[in-house]
Structure formats: C-alpha cells, structure tokens
C-alpha cells in the first residue's frame, strides 16, 4: 500500500502525516508513507485542497486533517 500525504509542509499537513502513521501502526499496515510537496503534482493527482491523503492513487481525504479514527475506518474499508 502506498499512502501519500499532499501538502506544502504546513502544520496541518504534518499533523495529517502523523495521523496517517499512527493509523497504519494501529492497524498493523506496512505502508509506504510519502509526503508530496510539489503543487504541480497536486493537480495531476486530482487534489484540490490540502492537506490530502491519497492511497494508491485514490483521494481519500482532502481539505482537512483526518483524525486517526477516520483514517483507520477508511483504510480498513480499502483493505477488505
């Protein structure tokens, strides 16, 4: 699983990345978490608002910091 956090290094983006890592840890997912900071990539991935969480090319969240709970729920759905 490839999880990308989109954002230009703002505090919200960092919090998002941290929540993603926590959610992965809690679920025992061994995912590669990357941080995409180039806005040209945002448009290509279909991300309009940052911070955004993109899992294997699908935009899961955008424009807000998802909580660990929300992330766990969404990731679980993807896995099943």
């Amino acid at each position, binding site marked *: 699983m490839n999880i990308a956090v*989109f*954002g*230009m290094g*703002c*505090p*919200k983006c960092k919090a998002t990345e941290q929540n993603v890592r926590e959610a992965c840890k809690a679920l025992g997912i061994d995912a590669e978490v990357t941080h995409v900071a180039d*806005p*040209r990539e*945002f*448009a*290509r991935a279909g*991300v*309009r*608002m*940052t911070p955004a969480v993109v899992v294997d090319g699908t935009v899961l969240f*955008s*424009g*807000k*910091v998802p*909580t660990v709970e929300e992330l766990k729920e969404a990731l679980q759905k993807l896995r099943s």
Partner: protein
Amino acid sequence: MRDVVVAGLLALRDYVATHVLTCLVPAFLLAGGIVSFVNREVILEYLGEKRSKLSSFSLASIASFFVAACSCTVIPVASGLYFGGASIGVAFIILWVAPATNILALTYTGSLLGASMALARVVAAIIMAFLVGSTMSLVFQKEHTAPAPSGESQPKGAILEKRSALLLFLVLLSLLLPNYLIRSGPYLHKVILWAVLTVLFAVYAKLTLPPKAIREWLRETLWFVRLIFPLLLLGVFVVGVIGKLLPKTWIRAWLGGNSIRSSFLATLIGAISYFATLTEAPFVSTLMKLGMGKGPALALLLTGPGLSLPNWLAIARVFGGKKALVYVTTIVLLGTVVGWFFGNFIFAP
C-alpha cells in the same frame, strides 16, 4: 530596554482584555465553520470551468472570500486550478484576493478599524484583483498549455446547506453586533451582547446539526486558534515594541498623509514582510495612532497578508520566476496607486 518590553506587554494586555472574547473567539468560530460547512471543492469546480473573462474573474473574486484564509493554503489552491486548466488570471486572482480580503480579515478589520476601512479594503482588493487578473492573462496568455477543461458541466453538490448557512450567519452576527452596536460604554456591555448571541447560535447548532458536524466545526476552529493565535499575540507584542521605539515624527514623516511616497512605502512594507492572517489589523491600527495616513494604511492592509518575501519565493517556485516578478510588480504598483487614490479622494474629509 525594560521600557520597551513593558510597552510590548502592555499592548498585549490591552489587546487580550478587549479583543479575545468579542473579536477573536467568534472570528475563529466563523472561520472554522466556513472550512467545515462550505463545500470548497464545489466552488473550485465552478472556477475550473470555461467562461468569459468577466464572469470568471468576478466568480474568482467572490469565491476567494470563502476558499482560504491565509497565503499558505492559497498557493496549492491557485496552482491546482492553474495546472488543472483554469486561466492564469483566475489563478492569480485567487492568490491575491483570498489573503487580501477574506471574510475573516474583513470582519476583523471592521471591528478594529471601523466599517469604512473594511469596506474600502474589500472594494480596493476586488478592483486590484481584476487589474491583476487582466495583466497576468495579457502577459502570459500564450504560454498557458494546460489542457482546457471539458465544456460540459457536470451536476455538482450544494455549496452550503441551508441550516449551516443560517448558523454561519448567526456566528457572523455574534462577531459584528457587539462591535458595531456598542461603540461606547464599558466593555462589559459588549461581552454581555456577545454571550447572548453565542448562546443563541450554540443552541441553534445543537438543535439542527448532527454531533459529528459540530465536532468537525470545533476541530477546524481549534486549528485556526492553534495556527493563528500565537502569531497574533507575537504580532501584537512586536507592534507594541515598535510603537515605543519608533518616534512619532518618523511615522508622520514617512507614512503620514496620503502622498504617493508614503503609500509606496506602506505597500513595500506590506509586500515584503510576513503578516500572519489578521496580524495586519492591529499593526495598522497602532501605526495609524502614531500618525500613518488612511491611504497608506489601506495599502498596508491589502499587501500585508497578501504578499511577503517567503510568499514570492513560493510563487516563483510553483509558477515560475517571470510570473512571480510580474505579479509582485503589478501588486506593488497597484497598491501604491490604490492607497494614494483612496487616501486623497475617498477618505478625504
């Protein structure tokens, strides 16, 4: 040295005592509400569509009010639109208007500096937006190679639900009424009116919205508090120190009156230094007390949050150096002219 620190602390105390409850708390709640209730994705979808210049520019100016509140979030939004196929004019209008005059900055300016200054701020920002948009599309129209968006418009979701719109309106009232209705008398009167209105919208929210939506709203509000409040306090402290250090005669000489020169200097200060959202208002208020003219004050209010050195670099990195250069030059020229014009012909007694 000690005097200076004391001046900074006094400014801080005054500020906290008279602004936190009746200005900042509702302002943050409003901003948080806009982020969590307004469907910004839908607004951006509208902006990406192909339209005539006039209609796309107007739409971009209005939409910017609600899209973002600070320059750090607006760069990804603007670049997303640009690389997604919107015209360069639209992208730069968003880049300019969203920080220069969003609903948060506007209501805050109004309660700190008066309604006429807030009105001038929004009018000037929108005039500048049209000129910036036109300039950018005139200079760079040919370069734009991003794929044009498909002509068909798909059905879109609602931008804002009715009940959350009403809630935002109530929050807006709790921000505006205490500051506009009660202009004199003890501060306690303001607090009482604020408390009544706050209870009103809290009850309304509780009755009409699901708990999840309310939680989300409060979470976004808390983000604004965490991001902006420390910077705001620091800003007020620094402003207090500056007010003590800078002799009045200097401010009068360099920023007083409504000459082209003082307007240009104010624009330059605003365009270079970084102002976190909202800090520009207390800064300008202090400088005005020390003798800054109204025209330069407006110029600084506009360019302060809209532009800064780090912001130039980010724009250059994303859009290219040439576009950043044209944009910054245009804004500095326009800011100077607008400050001069408003100072001499609009604010003039």
